[in-house]
Structures are given as structure tokens and as C-alpha cells.
């Protein structure tokens, strides 16, 4: 079986339209985040998160009544599939440095007394003091930035030119921005797991870009006379089958994770699903055109094809 035999599409010709789509998505994401803000997971924002498993289907109103008796500002929602009888309770604060869990304990106690007909059979809590939250936020940003920087350096080193590394990195930034925007729009929290997913898709998107750039490098050696744009377009075509199949298979696996992996991994899997689509697309429509533009730009300034040697 084979989907594509000797494909020959003009990818780079359609760059401008798709660039518009990319910019629209990024702008929408940034606009949404700046007006509504991002929802941080409890590990970043600090506070208390309680997941209570009830004996029977819990009535959210009654849970809320019980929780409001002992604390304020709680967010209450059903968690996981309804059949699991789980409720997630978020409090913006902790019990204090001496005993972090006192407010969570108070909530559980109040549930036991004010909602006695439906017992809590099992509970999980995550309580994060404000210092840890702030520290982790700083660390997450630092790690993402340094992670990107190191990958840029690696690609620049491997391909012997900053253009390749820069192109791949801009593509990755594009992926991260779009994924973050979509995460915010679809109401997912930014948790540690999501950060892990973002860093992974950075690696994944680079991976995809490298495969095409490797092919470009190989072709450049054999076809010195031809314009760079054509070589890149051919390289994209030559690797297209691989791109589609391997993105497709990876997509299938993370889709399985999204569908069957459970509530805890939902945000992680969502980020991966989006990231793989965007990462594949950005290699073809963001990273490759940047190299071509750079080449054209240099040619115009110097009036010579010498630019290619620098690539």
C-alpha cells in the first residue's frame, strides 16, 4: 500500500495564504490570553486542589453548600467521567505554613457532616504554598527558553549556519504559541504536565524540521546549479510520504492517549495532539520558507548566489 507516489506539489507557492492562517491563530490566542488570562494549574498558582470520590453520584449544589460553610472562593466542578462520582474542588489558598492541609481537611470534614447521605470514599489533594508556585513558574519559563536555545544551537552547529537553527526555532515558537493559545481557548489549565508536553513537542517539531533539512542538505550537494527554492520544495516532496505517515502514526498514539488516558493526562494529551499537527505543518510552511526568504534577501543585497555557501 502506498498513499503518495512521487508527489510534486508546489508547497512554497502557497506560503502566503497559510502564513495568514498562522498569524490569525497566534493573534487570536494572544488576544484571548491577554483578555481572559491563562488558567494555571495548582502547582503554579499555589492553593488547594481536592478531588473527592463519592459513593454515589454527587450533587454539585450540595457539595458547594458544604464547602461554602467552611471556606470561600472555591471552584467546584465534576471531574472525570460522571460514572466515577468525582468532584474537583479548587481553593485559592492553603491552610497556612504550619499545616498546609487544614483547609482541605476542613472541607472534607464539612462534606462528611453536611452531606452525610453520600460519603467521600477516597480523596486526593494537591496543596502548593505560594513560594513553591512562584518558584516553579519561574523555572518553567526558564527551562522552556533554555531548552529552545540549546536546540537552536544544536541545529546551527549541525547544519553549519545560523539560518537553519533560526528557521527551525521560529517554527517551534510558532508551534508553542498556537498550542498555548488553543489550550487557553479550550479552557485547559497550564500544569507541569502541559509544560512537559510543550517541551516534548518542541523536540518533536525540531525532529520533523531536521528530517527535511537533512534532505535539503543532501540535495544541495548534488544539485549545485538549481535555485534553493526549488531544491527545498523538492525535498519537502521527497520526504512528504514519510512526514505524513510518521506524523500520522504519532498522532494516532497521542490520540489514543487523549481518548483513553484519563482526566489527569487530558491537558497533556491535548497539547500533544495540537502540537503534532502544528509541528508538522510548521516545518513545511514556516521553517522552509524562512530559509528561502533569507537566501533571496541575501541575494538581493549582494547580487550573488554566494549566500548558498553560507547556508
Amino acid at each position: 500500500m502506498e498513499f503518495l507516489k512521487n508527489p510534486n506539489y508546489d508547497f512554497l507557492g502557497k506560503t502566503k495564504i497559510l502564513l495568514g492562517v498562522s498569524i490569525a491563530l497566534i493573534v487570536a490566542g494572544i488576544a484571548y490570553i491577554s483578555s481572559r488570562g491563562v488558567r494555571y494549574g495548582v502547582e503554579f498558582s499555589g492553593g488547594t486542589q481536592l478531588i473527592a470520590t463519592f459513593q454515589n453520584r454527587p450533587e454539585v449544589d450540595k457539595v458547594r453548600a458544604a464547602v461554602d460553610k467552611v471556606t470561600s472562593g472555591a471552584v467546584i466542578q465534576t471531574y472525570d467521567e460522571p460514572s466515577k462520582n468525582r468532584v474537583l474542588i479548587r481553593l485559592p489558598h492553603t491552610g497556612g505554613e504550619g499545616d498546609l492541609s487544614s483547609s482541605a481537611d476542613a472541607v472534607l470534614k464539612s462534606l462528611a457532616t453536611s452531606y452525610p447521605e453520600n460519603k467521600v470514599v477516597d480523596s486526593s489533594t494537591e496543596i502548593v504554598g505560594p513560594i513553591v508556585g512562584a518558584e516553579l513558574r519561574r523555572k518553567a519559563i526558564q527551562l522552556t527558553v533554555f531548552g529552545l536555545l540549546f536546540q537552536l544551537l544544536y541545529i546551527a552547529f549541525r547544519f553549519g549556519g545560523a539560518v537553519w537553527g533560526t528557521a527551525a526555532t521560529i517554527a517551534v515558537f510558532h508551534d508553542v504559541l498556537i498550542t498555548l493559545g488553543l489550550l487557553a481557548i479550550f479552557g485547559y489549565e497550564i500544569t507541569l504536565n502541559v509544560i512537559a508536553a510543550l517541551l516534548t513537542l518542541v523536540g518533536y517539531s525540531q525532529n520533523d524540521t531536521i528530517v527535511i533539512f537533512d534532505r535539503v542538505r543532501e540535495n544541495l550537494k548534488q544539485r549545485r546549479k538549481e535555485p534553493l527554492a526549488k531544491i527545498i520544495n523538492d525535498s519537502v516532496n521527497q520526504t512528504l510520504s514519510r512526514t505524513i505517515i510518521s506524523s500520522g502514526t504519532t498522532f494516532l498514539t497521542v490520540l489514543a492517549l487523549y481518548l483513553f488516558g484519563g482526566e489527569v493526562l487530558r491537558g497533556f494529551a491535548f497539547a500533544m495532539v495540537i502540537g503534532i499537527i502544528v509541528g508538522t505543518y510548521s516545518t513545511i510552511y514556516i521553517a522552509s520558507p524562512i530559509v528561502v526568504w533569507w537566501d533571496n534577501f541575501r541575494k538581493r543585497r549582494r547580487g550573488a548566489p554566494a549566500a548558498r555557501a553560507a547556508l
Partner: protein
Amino acid sequence: MPPALQNPFLLWFLLSVALAVLCYFTMRRELRVRATLYGSFLLACIVAMWPPYGKDDTPGKIHLGLDLKGGIHLVLQVVTDDALNATVDDAVSAARTQATAKGITVGAIHRLDATSFTVEGVEPARVKDMRDILHDYFRSPEWDLREPGEARFLVKMTDSYVNQVRDRTVKEAIRTLERRVNQLGVAEPIIAQHGARGDQILVQLPGVTDVEQAKRVISTTAQLSLQMVEDSAGSRESLLDKTQGKVPDNMEVVQGPGREPGQPEFYLVRKEAVITGRDLKNARAGVDGQTNSPDVNFSLNPVGADKFKRETGRSVGKRLAIVLDHSVISAPTIHSQIGAEGQITGRFSTQEADELAKNLRAGALPATLKYLQQLTVGASLGRDSIRQGIVAAGMGMAFLAIFMILYYRLSGVNAIVALAANLLILLGAMAYTGATLTLPGIAGVILTVGVGVDTNVLVFERIREELRNGKTVKAAINNGFDRVWMTILDTHATALIAAAFLFQFGTGPVKGFAVTLVMGLIANIFASYFVSRFIFEWVLGHRKAATLSI
């Protein structure tokens, strides 16, 4: 299984030999060595990971993280300033004692902040004597002595000493917590230094469901008691020999370090303590006048002194166990009746004596602990997570397997074998290194599978391309593998860079993700490149094929 085969190394060796013999008789010459090496490596992985998950009595070889098993995860801040204050307070009282002993009149000696104290208003004629005392007691590299004004001294801890005290405080706190947690009987607890500045402690208690009890044990101050020793032995059985294996009603068995490091000693002690921590007034490390070895001097309050005098008077020649948090610190012999002041001698180093004194004084914790983070995972959520993780992994792999066979036919089978090898290596490596599998770790496994297939796809597509260009099967395969080698190295290197950064998130689920990702990526190069290539060569050799099912 015969007992000899219980030894995993032997088992692996025998299996490998069997494999080598099999390869010798069934394979072509150029494949034998590789087949044996690859096969024996995979066998090692199977032996290392077996049994992967625990039954009721035997634990599995794959460690499950808190998020899968349920349990408690705590991050505590050690307020190391407490220990600095105490150090300076000790110094202040030492300086005062010395000044009084030498008859020097001093206006005031007081602590300035957490790391320094001043001596003011020294009588002018004795400034030199005071300087000598301070020089003697507060030398570099630990202390820095300055004279900011007439008859004034400023004594400050040096930065290196401050760091040393801070570090020691955290380590002491860790040891104390370890002692307390041991009472809970948790399998595989983690208690470790944590945080960027190293002044936090991470406590992980997998499988613990009673949060209340665990927190109570962690936060109780130490229980010190001095109990009379009836007997001691190297094992519990020989200790209870005389009493037919039963512990007498008024006795209990406590454990402590034995003569040889790593060997415990068991003590049969009277349940009723002679004195407890409440009777203690003070404790201080010192040097034994006769033997010149470090010891600990302690003083008791009047009630305690009375009790102690009575009991030690009756028991000269017997041994007295110093029991801290239910474990014996030392069991010295009572040489003479002891009253309000006593001495504990043992085989201490100066630092150990210092530590014991501090433990006795402060009820064992050298500094206050603040809770920074607390995570508890209920058993049912953990169970759901592991089930969903496995279902997701299984479904993902099933999708892949079906697709690969449809799309690449027999070569797809090759990819699936490589994938299985990849998983085996990943799990074997996790079992061997004791790495923890978390829920994001399972996601890492699934992702590894995806990336592994990517390697196969890269190679297969290249082989198809070479075949289209009219190459022979053999040349196509060789070219295919050779040409993508650099690409595969590059893609794995960038992914490894990303994973290395994830490691920085310390322990916890995300680290579990990074661990599986790193191991998976390395396993993948071996499985999807070398094993897969070997299978191609093996199968083609049999058929002298002119066509390839790809």
C-alpha cells in the same frame, strides 16, 4: 524454578549460552555474533524486569510512582536560620562563661543577628585578655573577629561556616525524618534534600493511605527515653531465645546500630523509662577528661535528677539504652550513681557527639519545618490512572501495529518486532536502574513508541525510494539504512536535549516522563535501527530475495 536459577545473573547467562548455541546452528556465519549479542541483551532486559508488576506478596520490578500507587508527597522547608541562631547563642554563652571564669567585667555580650554577636563595654585594662579569649575560641575558618571600636568586639560566622551549618541542619533534619518515617513501615520511602538552595526536604511515602497518621508521625517532636537494658543480641530470634520467643509483658524490643556498620543490634529493654526527654534540662557536647574522647554532658531537672539517682544507684554495672524515636542511639554502661548531671560516653566522633547533644536538647529536630507542598493521591484515583494509562498505551500500539502491517506488509511486522524490543529495553532499563514509572511516564512510553515507529518509517520510505530508483533489494536496504543514520542521530539528539531540560523539574511525575523519554529514545536507536536492520538481513539471506515486501 530450581534455586540456582533464582540468581538472575546466572539465569541470564544460561539463557544466553543456549541462544548462542541456537544461533550457531541455525544462522549464517556473518549473522551469528550479532544475533547472539542482540538476543542476549534483550534477554538481560527480560530477566531484569521480571516480574514487572507486584502480586500480593512479591513486589514488581517496575517501581510505580505516587500518582499510580497512591501515597503522600511532601515538600518541607527547613528554617535553617533556627540552627544559626542556636549556634550563635551557644557561642554567646561560651564567651560569657569564659569572661566570668577569667574575672573580666564586660558590659554586654549579645547576639546581633542570626550569624554574629558583639561584646561591648569590656573593662579597659582587660581588653587584651578578652581579645585572647575570643581569639582562642572563635578562630577562622569558622569565625571572623573584628574590633569596630574601643573595647568592642564583633564576632561573625564566616560564609563557609554559615553554609556548613545550614547544610548540616538539613542533613540532620533528614536523618530525623528518616527515623520517624521508619516507624511507619513504608516500603521505599524517599526522604531527600530538595530545592535550588538545598534547604528543602522532599518526603515521598508511596502506598500510604492514612495521611493523618503519616503527618502526625512526621510532625511529632522526638521521643527521648532512657531505658534499662535487660539483654542484647545480634538478632531478634537469639535475643528472645531465653524467653521462648516471647517478649515479656514489661519489656519491649528496640533496634539500634551494632558494633559493625550495617549490622543491627537488638535490645530487650524495660518498657518503663527511667527518665524521658521532659526530665532533661540541657545537653552539651564535650570531651571526656580521662580518655580524651568526645562525649555528651547532660543535666536534669530536679524531678528527673531524683528519679535518675535512685535508679542508677540500684543498677551500677547494668546498661542504659538511650532511645530516640524508638531506636537505640547508644547503650552505655552505668559506672556509678548519677544525679543531676551525667555523661554519655560512646564511640562518638566530635560531630556525632555534637549532634546527639543537639538532638537531646531540641527534641531531635535541629530547626523548624514549614510545609511548602503537599500532594496526596488516593488509591482509587491511582488505580484508575494506571488502568487508563495501560489502556491508552495498548490502544495506541494496536493502532500502530494494524497500520504498519497494512501499509508496509511484512516489513511492518519487522517494525512491530523492533517496537516490542524497544519496549523490552525501556522496561528492563527502568527496572535495572530503579527508575520510577509515573502516569506522565506512561505517556512517555507511548510517545517513545511513536518516535520508534518514526525511525522505521524513515528507513522504510527511503528503501522504497531506492527500490523505485531501480536498486536491488540488498542495495536498497543498505542505502536506506546508511542514508538515514545521520537524520536519526539528529532527531534523537534534539529530543534528548528537550528531555534533559525536563529532568530539571526535580522529582515527581514530570521527571518520570523525562526518564522514560530518555531511556526510550536510546532504546529506540538500538531497536528500530540495529535490530530492524538485522532482521532484514536475516530474512533476506534465507530467501535470496529479488523482491521485498514493503
